[in-house]
């Protein structure tokens, strides 16, 4: 019997376990396997094979029965996913069944999840921006949250490294708050955007700039992957491999090493702590198809289950030594939950371009990096926001009466309508200790696990910022000559931006943070957490590129520590 156990243990033992196969987990698997480690990559959901399983990617509009809309049956099983635009018939199968995976909302939190190999790397927005020292120093300067244990110089080479592999297209701007990177050629602005850019930069004498979105879409062939075909159907999965995803990029690299074992349907219930060594010795998995419990063992564990997925695993990994969750003697685990707040800005109509149109559907917009609370620009709140947006020519025609119909309406709607230009703010949220998740044992998921409860809200600093997000946008659009400029604030609930961060933050002091500067749990040195949960502040840039860089950096450190027998 003991022989059998020993054999089973040996079969289930790897050098490293990576929990989660999304953006950061894919990177961890790639880096660790390329450094020679035998890696077990665990994914709670099904497999999705690159290209083959992108079942809707090549469908024509009329081949979707409901033309993109979701049915009453979809609404019944996906009551959270239906709250906002991402959940459609076009990639319906990429979104979680909320009934299987419930959670508790002490306050409303919109939790968008995709449980499958690749995770949200298949559906992400692909906007890829570096953080700058402005971001790494804000906490220290204004006293919100704790100081980041790293600075831009620590991460810069790793940004270079991940950008070169992932393929980020963009324009260098030499803008201090938004460092340039290793860019593929930028996508082109359209004629309205070019005009708006010119007029904004003239009016503010380049103290505000507008650049083309920096996006993980390939503008040229790169690393054996095809270039963007300008279909703008990315979130269905790209048959050309033209945007960065686990499937198109990191997974093939990890598989090529021969060192990877990918195990889908493997829901990690907890990390197994060994009090003798004071380290993790492995994980306990629930096979999400058979409900069987299986233990896997490794020298190091990378936790990449998405911010709140990872936080759940850590909170659920209790032991006599870690009664409140693994590495949680600080009491910070689950706290400081952040998301960007957005859905506030302005838009207007561009005149004078009626003889111009575009060709192709560019899966990208423009970006105005943060300029508030920098230099002489002072506001009545801390931090700031950037804008995403763009100009486009739709089929709206002034001549069409309200709810009009008939031959004339049909012919008008078949023609290009007015040009519009919009700017939508993405604002930084402060790390508030009281914004948190915790385990709610009164509810169970499909596999009998307790669930997360959310208690999180935006506050006064965010609210003040939103006023400027509207007014600055309107001011810039008016300066750029737009007509009928209108502002909007459609409200923003935490979770909606799908940039959740911060619940296992990095810091210098084990008393006030969960992770050290290497994304290593202060108290459990062979466990690394490198997804969004590690973020000490949120900045206002889209964060995924930073997760990639932090992951590659942590993998490099972990392997060098392993070699030194420090783990």
């Amino acid at each position: 019997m003991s022989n059998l156990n020993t054999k089973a243990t040996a079969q289930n033992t790897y050098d490293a376990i990576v929990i989660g196969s999304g953006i950061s987990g894919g990177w961890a698997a790639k880096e660790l396997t390329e450094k020679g480690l035998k890696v077990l990559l665990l994914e709670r959901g099904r497999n999705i094979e690159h290209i083959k399983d992108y079942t809707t990617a090549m469908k024509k509009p009329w081949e979707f029965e409901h033309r993109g809309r979701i049915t009453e049956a979809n609404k019944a099983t996906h009551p959270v996913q239906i709250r906002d635009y991402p959940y459609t018939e076009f990639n319906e199968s990429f979104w979680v069944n909320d009934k299987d995976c419930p959670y508790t909302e002490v306050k409303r939190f919109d939790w968008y999840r995709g449980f499958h190999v690749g995770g949200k790397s298949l559906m992400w927005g692909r906007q890829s921006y570096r953080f700058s020292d402005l971001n790494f120093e804000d906490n220290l300067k204004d006293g919100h949250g704790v100081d980041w244990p790293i600075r831009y110089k620590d991460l810069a080479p790793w940004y270079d490294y991940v950008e070169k592999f992932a393929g980020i297209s963009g324009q260098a701007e030499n803008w201090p708050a938004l460092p340039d990177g290793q860019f593929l050629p930028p996508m082109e602005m359209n004629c309205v955007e070019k005009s708006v850019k010119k007029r904004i930069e003239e009016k503010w004498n380049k103290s505000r700039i507008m650049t083309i979105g920096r996006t993980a879409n390939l503008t040229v062939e790169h690393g054996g992957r095809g270039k963007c075909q300008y279909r703008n159907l990315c979130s269905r999965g790209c048959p050309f491999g033209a945007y960065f995803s686990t499937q198109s990029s990191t997974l093939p690299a990890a598989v090529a090493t021969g060192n990877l074992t990918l195990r889908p349907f493997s829901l990690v219930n907890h990390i197994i702590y060994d009090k003798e060594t004071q380290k993790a010795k492995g994980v306990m998995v629930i096979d999400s198809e058979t409900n069987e419990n299986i233990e896997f063992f490794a020298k190091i564990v990378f936790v990449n289950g998405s911010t709140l997925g990872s936080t759940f695993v850590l909170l659920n990994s209790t032991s006599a030594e870690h009664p409140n969750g693994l590495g949680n003697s600080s009491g910070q685990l689950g706290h400081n939950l952040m998301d960007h707040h957005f859905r506030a800005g302005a838009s207007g109509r561009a005149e004078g371009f009626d003889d111009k149109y575009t060709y192709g559907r560019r899966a990208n917009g423009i970006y105005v990096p943060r300029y508030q609370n920098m230099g002489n620009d002072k506001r009545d709140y801390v931090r700031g926001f950037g804008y995403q947006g763009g100009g486009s020519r739709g089929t709206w025609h002034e001549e069409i009466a309200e709810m009009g119909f008939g031959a004339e309406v049909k012919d008008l709607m078949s023609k290009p309508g007015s040009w519009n230009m919009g700017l939508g703010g993405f604002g930084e949220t402060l790390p508030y200790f009281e914004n948190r998740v915790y385990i709610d044992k009164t509810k169970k998921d499909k596999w009998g696990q307790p669930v997360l409860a959310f208690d999180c809200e935006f506050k006064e600093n965010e609210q003040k910022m939103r006023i400027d997000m509207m007014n600055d946008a309107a001011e810039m659009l008016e300066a750029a000559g737009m007509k009928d400029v209108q502002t909007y604030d459609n409200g923003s609930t935490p979770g909606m931006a799908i940039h959740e961060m911060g619940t296992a933050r990095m810091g210098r002091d084990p008393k006030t943070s969960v992770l050290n500067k290497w994304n290593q749990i202060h108290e459990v040195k062979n466990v690394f957490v490198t997804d969004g949960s590690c973020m000490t502040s949120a900045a206002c840039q889209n964060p995924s590129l930073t997760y990639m860089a932090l992951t590659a950096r942590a993998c490099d450190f972990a392997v060098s520590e392993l070699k030194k027998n420090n783990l």
Partner: protein
Amino acid sequence: MAQSESSVNKTKLNHMNRRDAVKSVAFLMAGTLSATTIGVFLEGCNPNPAPNKNLFSADQEKTLAELADTILPDTKTPGAKAAGVGPFMAMMVKECYPEHAQKVFLEGLEDLEAKSNKQFNKSFIEITAAERSKLLNVVREETIAKQKAEKDKTELEKKQKQSTIVQKSEKEEPGKPLAAKERYKETPYFFAIARDLTLLGYFTSEIGASQAMEYIAIPGHYDGCVDMKPGQRAYSS
């Protein structure tokens, strides 16, 4: 996460209700989706839709096809009837709308038929295209008036509510100022649903997307500034 693409779509739709923009499919640009329809679409669902229940009689299905063709008739390009929008509309109402909206839709359809009988002494499917347009315009104007009345009422309530909220502390109304807008709770309207589904069904049909509009499956490259060609059609996607 999926923001960039969508924010572009969203921001270009300023003239319209923002919620439309958020929920509308990109190829149906501003102006085509009514808030009411979107609201119905978003609203609480019917968890046990009877899968094989026939919502519409055979005559009503004929009416739907003619109704769609009145909204988007044959012009230089085939209209909504040729594009199969009648059956599409019937299927969509059955599968994508909650029961109470289905009921409103059916009542609207019956009312349309009653109006036709009253005014022309004939069924909607028997009257001329011009007569159908005339009749439908009456329904359209009624719908606009009802929506406006409802909107005025909502705004009044909102104003009254706001003045009470101001007096409450942030603790009592945590997070309220930033609360995402409630899903539309407006009453569903027959004409708004019919028009919305006709536009959706038509401009995403093969005829609508590739004859009325121009469909390019794989553009291959992007050009941000091209000259409009004579007779330039809008792109579908």
